[in-house]
């Protein structure tokens, strides 16, 4: 129990630090990095629910992110509906789509499932590319209006975007945390560890995987809306791309799977790294930033295969003695 409490306190401190950071600097670039960091950390947390807890590897989360982005954008662009309402619609569509496409996919196990999610995301991307109503491959420039909370557009400062991202991030983390500590969290982890044992314990594995995917999709969609409003332009290659899906996977794996701190740590390392290398080295348009980024990923994978969290755990585990892992 004490350990739990300690962990909760840690979370409060982490939130506090994240919240304070952008106020310490008026550098717009830094604010930008913080916003992107929160968006990806949030996406990682959402992804972690189905993949980290439930063990069902999704390579297609860009689909939900993109649906969130497009839902609000289309509604605003065509009908002038507030992006907040659009966000809600995005959540609903994303949840429904995730349920429809995942249900058949859940019959597949392991890599077969992972590739199926990738296939689904690519199909959705293709549909958006060829769909005239949503402007296809051209993409949509979101009409710029006077800044207001209702229109989710801010032009004089990035801080409001940061605050919204922070809010969404907290909701996502707390949702993930709530799930982790509830029956659903235990069930998902049981499914991850052994499908058969889970069934024998009376767990309807398909149903819980479905729930996890739906929650994960809903949360991912909210960040899509925010991203669209922040960049004020979207096209299918930006939001539905495999790069987004893979970035989510990467940062969560980097941080450590199956734990709410994993994506947070992973994003805190990966996003500033990628954004700053882009800012300082990407200007040449030659991809130097991504060369370095790629090399760093390789290094981390080679030398800390358990993720950063694994590294931390190793230290703690040694002291506590209990978690000495034997493979026998």
């Amino acid at each position, binding site marked *: 129990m004490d350990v739990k409490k300690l962990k909760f306190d840690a979370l409060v401190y982490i939130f506090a630090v994240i919240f304070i950071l952008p106020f310490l600097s008026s550098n717009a670039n830094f604010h930008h990095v913080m916003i992107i960091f929160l968006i990806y950390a949030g996406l990682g947390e959402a992804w972690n629910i189905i993949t980290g807890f439930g063990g069902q*590897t999704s390579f297609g989360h860009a689909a939900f992110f993109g649906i969130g982005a497009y839902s609000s954008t289309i509604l605003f662009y065509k009908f002038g509906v507030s992006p907040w309402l659009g966000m809600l619609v995005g959540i609903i569509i994303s949840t429904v789509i995730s349920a429809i496409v995942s249900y*058949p*996919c859940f*019959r*597949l*196990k392991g*890599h*077969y499932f992972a*590739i*199926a999610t*990738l*296939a*689904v995301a*690519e*199909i959705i991307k*293709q*549909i958006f*590319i*060829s769909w005239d109503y949503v402007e296809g491959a051209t993409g949509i420039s979101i009409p710029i209006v006077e800044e207001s909370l209702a229109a989710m557009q801010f032009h004089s400062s990035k801080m409001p975007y940061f605050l919204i991202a922070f809010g969404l991030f907290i909701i996502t983390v707390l949702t993930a945390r709530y799930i982790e500590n509830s029956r659903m969290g235990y069930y998902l982890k049981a499914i991850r560890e052994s499908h058969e044992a889970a069934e024998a314990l009376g767990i309807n594995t398909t149903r819980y995987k479905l729930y996890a995917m739906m929650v994960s999709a809903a949360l991912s969609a909210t960040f899509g809306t925010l991203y669209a409003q922040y960049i004020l332009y979207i096209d299918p290659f930006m939001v539905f791309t*495999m790069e987004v899906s*893979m970035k989510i*996977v*990467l940062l969560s*794996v*980097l941080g450590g*799977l199956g734990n709410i701190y994993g994506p947070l740590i992973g994003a805190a390392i990966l996003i500033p790294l990628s954004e700053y290398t882009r800012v300082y080295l990407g200007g040449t348009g*030659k*991809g*130097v*930033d*991504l*060369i370095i*980024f*790629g*090399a*760093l*990923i*390789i290094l*981390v*994978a*080679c*030398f800390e*295969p*358990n*993720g950063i969290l694994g590294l931390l755990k190793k230290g703690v585990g040694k002291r506590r003695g209990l978690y000495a892992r034997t493979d026998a």
Partner: protein
Amino acid sequence: MLLQVIFSGILVGFVYSLVAVGLTLIWGVMDVINFAHGDFLTISMYTVFWLYTLLKLDPLVSLPVATGLVFLLSFLTYKLIIKRVINAPGLTALLATFGLSLFIRNLAQYLWTPNYRFIPTSLVADKKLELAGVIIGMPQLVAAVGSIIMTVAVFYFLKYTKTGRAIQATSLDRDTAKLMGVNTEKIYALTFGISGACVGVAGALLATFFPIYPESGALYSLLAFVIVALGGFGNIAGALYGGVLIGLSEALGGYFLGTQFKYAVVFLIYLLVLQFKPKGLFGW
């Protein structure tokens, strides 16, 4: 016209098969998803391109050079990177290969710009074969035949040579193979090398009619993932048939629904087949 479409679908399908064979080998033998697979293909294409531009070598002549080079690079990839992550939990190996993919792709962009390059003249360029009203481009035909030869070669290598059998044994059961005296370390490195050689051949053949740019391999690796899963992970014959099936459905999908939907059709076929065969066409 339909016949034409079917034919070209099958031809390109054989190239897909070869790329997928390389991927499925690694997947089957060491359970690693190699995200950089397509980027090795890109390297092969660029090798052929530069040999053509600088030394006026015909792509078909420089094919062995490109294949050898990619074999070597893949071999080294195993020794330097994969070796360290192969026993790591979960998705770590994937992380490493994805990093490698980013690295290669962007290095290519840095060194050679994102521009499309072409090899305008070669032994096969602009030649056509007409058979009962169906026109077949020579480059495509040669690419298909070359891919078939390489696929069959790999197949026979695995089946009838001692090393090949050791690879298969390792794929079935790593620990037992080790106990039986198989040097799994060597087998892994070799498997990676052979996988590289597959895309080495495919890349050189594709370079005769396909634009060369830093991301040209990316599409192939995406399709190869689907083909590999369709055929069953680690199943060579599955990859062969899967490749043809995907080539065909891509061509037919493009013909009936418009080219923008051809990949959607491919992925849909995958999802449909796996509804009935959750472990791939040849899984049980």
